[in-house]
């Protein structure tokens, strides 16, 4: 039986949409960019090499928690084995679930991939191809409600990546007071990750959005207004931080593999 815009009682229009603009362009770009990142990140997660070039650690491998990790790649030690049941496991696989989960459950990325990947809907006022829809009311999509847990985990990762960006002010002999192109790349990536996290809707809620009386909590209210201003730019930070992480990893990989030389300013 016809449903949606083709329901019996609605205006008889045979087109799924009458939009005349290029509504398909945005989901297409989103799909292409996210897909490219997924393919690259998957390749890197399994590559299991070229993630460290003193003093630079790739954000896709940090903290490097496996016993197979190179010394100096984790401030938290190496609690995991490099093999389980005889199968070698890349250290990236122990940690990537957290930043991945944070982005996967992010309200902005949800909008993006529901439109671009699942076409639910592909664009506003463009009929979706699915016969049924239950949204985020049942498994697996009800797990989107776990976003705040990934947000908290993401903050821990931001602290670790800040540590990585800080030690990037050393040279290859571990002497402080130096700066290279790699330092700038890691600092930029980390700053963008912090902005992405702080502008997050869950952060906005936790800081003050959940309050009923702002007047009783002036400091939280003030902080909430700052976070709200950042929240306007959340989609921008989501994309820039994604590119920042990808570029930081590419840079570290190229330096670690010997393809590029990490130029030191001082």
């Amino acid at each position, binding site marked *: 039986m016809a*449903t*949606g*815009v083709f*329901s*019996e*009682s*609605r*205006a*008889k*229009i045979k087109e799924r*949409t*009458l*939009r*005349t*603009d290029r509504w398909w362009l945005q989901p297409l770009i989103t799909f292409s960019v996210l897909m490219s990142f997924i393919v690259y990140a998957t390749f890197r997660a399994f590559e299991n090499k070229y993630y460290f070039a003193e003093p630079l650690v790739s954000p896709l491998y940090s903290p490097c928690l496996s016993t197979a990790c190179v010394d100096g790649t984790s401030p938290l030690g190496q609690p995991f084995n490099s093999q389980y049941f005889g199968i070698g496991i890349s250290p990236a696989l122990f940690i990537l679930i957290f930043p991945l989960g944070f982005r996967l459950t992010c*309200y902005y990325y*949800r*909008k993006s991939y*529901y*439109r671009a990947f699942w076409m*639910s*809907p592909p664009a*506003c*006022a*463009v*009929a*979706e191809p*699915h016969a*049924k*829809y*239950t*949204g*985020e*009311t049942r498994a697996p*999509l*009800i797990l989107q*409600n*776990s*976003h*705040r847990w990934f947000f908290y985990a993401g903050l821990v990762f931001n602290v670790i990546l800040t540590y990585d960006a800080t030690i990037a002010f050393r040279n290859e002999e571990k002497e402080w007071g130096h700066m290279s192109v790699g330092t700038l790349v890691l600092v930029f990536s980390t700053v963008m990750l912090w902005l992405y996290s702080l502008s997050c*809707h*869950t952060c*906005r*809620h936790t800081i003050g*959005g*959940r*309050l*009923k*009386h*702002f*007047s*009783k909590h002036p400091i939280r*209210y003030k902080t909430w207004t700052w976070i709200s201003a950042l*929240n306007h730019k959340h989609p921008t930070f989501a994309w820039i931080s994604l590119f920042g992480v990808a570029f930081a990893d590419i840079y570290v990989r190229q330096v670690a593999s010997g393809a590029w030389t990490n130029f030191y300013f001082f």
Partner: protein
Amino acid sequence: MARKLKLRIWRGDATDGGLKNVEVEANDGEVVLDLIHRVQATQMGDLAVRWNCKAGKCGSCSMEINGKPRLACMTQVSSFPEGEEITVTPLRAFPVIKDLVTDVSFNYRKAMEIPSYEHPKNLAPGEARMEQIDVERSQEFRKCIECFLCQDVCHVVRDHEENKKSFAGPRFFIRIAELDMHPLDMLKNRKQKAQEEHGLGMCNITKCCTEVCPEHIRITDNAIIPMKERVVDVKYDPVRWLGSKIRKREGIV
């Protein structure tokens, strides 16, 4: 300067209908509703169209213009490129009555299902005092003119008629958010009801409601997502749940 414009207007009722081509004169500064009125006055005397204020404040002239839900009185003819045909149809999420007029009673039924404001029992009328910073979030939602463009564009009901039973829609999520953020509202289970009875969980935050709102209310960012987070507080966050039990408070103050 006057120019000739090609319009395609949907004409018909629930049994049948289709797009009719007309050519109409358009003058500088005119909006699509002006063209529809000119067509009605000169070529289609029985064309049905709902309108009232012609100032973007009554929310009556909601329709779809080139496939996008818009107010006809706020859509400048000059916003379309020279020579582009303009297609005007009724809202496609609601039953059509005649031509450009749809039956939007779904929204009124949903409005009646939303629990109203509950005043504190210890405050007599006239005794209530609120600070501006406590009410300004809710005031954004009071700008709603009930044009129902957000309801029309929301794919949850637009593309799935069967969901109308269990889904209130973005207009009523801002109503729920307005009341839940109200500093004096005493209703305890508004968040649970939003999730369990009004279908908040069905929203997948694709933000089309925000895109079409003529009052530029940030429906998704300021109402729906905050409500989803408040639902997480009471339904999916064991730490907050435990904290509320230990500290003997609702968790939101």
